[in-house]
């Protein structure tokens, strides 16, 4: 009797350790995540109730954002009118608004307390969501799609120590790497900024546009201070993240119509180099 108990223990321990190890190989664990139909629908029900709690602050943010966008539309209309006068020829390259499409989704499960955080959204393969797509909320970037089910997807949150994002100081070409180091969900770090880069406290950090995941210029956060870095030729900035991950509720998934094209070019390159 005692011996069989040890066998049972060993059996479950091996399963757990396997889960622990293969869990890192995310694509293989599709059905053991919150993108699964059963867990997904439970979360969907729960979030329909809890979703109301953050409405007030989200509405305030949206109003502010709306005002900003209206201003921008007016400015752009003016600029466009000026350009129309200048260039009657309409051989313009494809614009960002044509290249990127958005799919709105609701966050049905979200975590900020782990070292590796994920959240789950209620859109999946049937809505055209694919692994690797960028996810933004109304304030800034939120994460990257990781595992997709037919109706749900799991997203690697920006608050995940393993995930890095290519960002830059707004208005410059100084590129850095954004990461989160655990703890406070409102604080992030931008590493590998060249030492000669100039910045001020409060400057905006935006996405660099060097990947197919995010278009250029999506807000990421604001510079708080400079922190010591191991490498002398680079420095690290501590930033306040634009998105509030504790009240994430509605997000947009970014589709890039050129994604497959650009990715296959990158693969082609790798093949040639090998």
């Amino acid at each position, binding site marked *: *009797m*005692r011996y*069989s*108990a040890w066998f*049972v*223990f060993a059996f*479950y*321990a091996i*399963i*757990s*350790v*396997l*889960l*622990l*190890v*293969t*869990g890192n190989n995310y694509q293989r*664990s599709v059905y*053991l*995540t*919150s993108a*699964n139909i059963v*867990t997904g629908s*439970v*979360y969907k029900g729960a979030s329909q109730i809890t979703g109301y709690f953050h409405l007030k602050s989200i509405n305030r943010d949206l109003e502010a954002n709306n005002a900003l966008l209206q201003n921008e539309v007016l400015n752009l209309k003016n600029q466009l009118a000026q350009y129309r006068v200048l260039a009657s020829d309409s051989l313009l390259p494809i614009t960002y608004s044509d290249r990127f499409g958005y799919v709105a989704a609701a966050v049905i*499960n979200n*975590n900020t307390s*782990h*070292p590796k955080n*994920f959240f*789950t959204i209620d859109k999946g393969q049937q809505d055209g969501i694919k692994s690797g797509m960028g996810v933004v909320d109304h304030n800034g970037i939120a994460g990257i799609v990781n595992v997709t089910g037919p109706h749900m997807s*799991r997203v690697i949150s920006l608050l995940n120590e393993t995930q890095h994002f290519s960002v830059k100081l707004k208005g410059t070409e100084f590129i850095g790497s954004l990461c989160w180091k*655990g*703890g406070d969900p409102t604080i992030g770090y931008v590493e590998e900024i060249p030492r000669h880069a100039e910045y001020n406290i409060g400057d905006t950090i935006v996405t660099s546009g060097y990947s197919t995941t995010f278009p250029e210029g999506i807000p990421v956060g604001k510079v708080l201070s400079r922190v010591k870095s191991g490498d002398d030729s680079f420095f690290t900035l501590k930033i306040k993240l634009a998105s509030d991950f504790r009240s994430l509720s509605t997000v947009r998934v970014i589709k890039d119509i050129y994604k497959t094209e650009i990715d296959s070019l990158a693969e082609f390159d790798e093949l040639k180099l090998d």
Partner: protein
Amino acid sequence: MTLSTNWLLTWAFLSGFIVDLFSDTPGVNSLSCILLAVVKRPVLYAYIPKDDRTKDIQPSLANLGFAAYAKYLLTMSVIYCFMVFIIEYFSFGDVKEIVIMASSSSVLTFGLLLGIDSLMVTKRD
């Protein structure tokens, strides 16, 4: 209701696994739960008199009394929370953070479980 050791381990694994499914932490809670099931009896026996150490005794406020049960519960909460955080961080690089998070979680877990248990006692009376 008493469970054989094998069933105890099975329930422990399943409950941990379900928590893992919902929190995207594959293996973390299932491993912690089965290890907790293994130390259940030794911990329990450490806090009760020798005469009571039969297979049938189940840890609860009603069976053990407050002092022994509180000690049992606190020990189990501390073991579980430290296991979860150690497995989740998977390194001792940030011991301070692990200790802070695990201890505060232990206190919270202990308080919640004691609260639930005291509710069940008053219902039975």
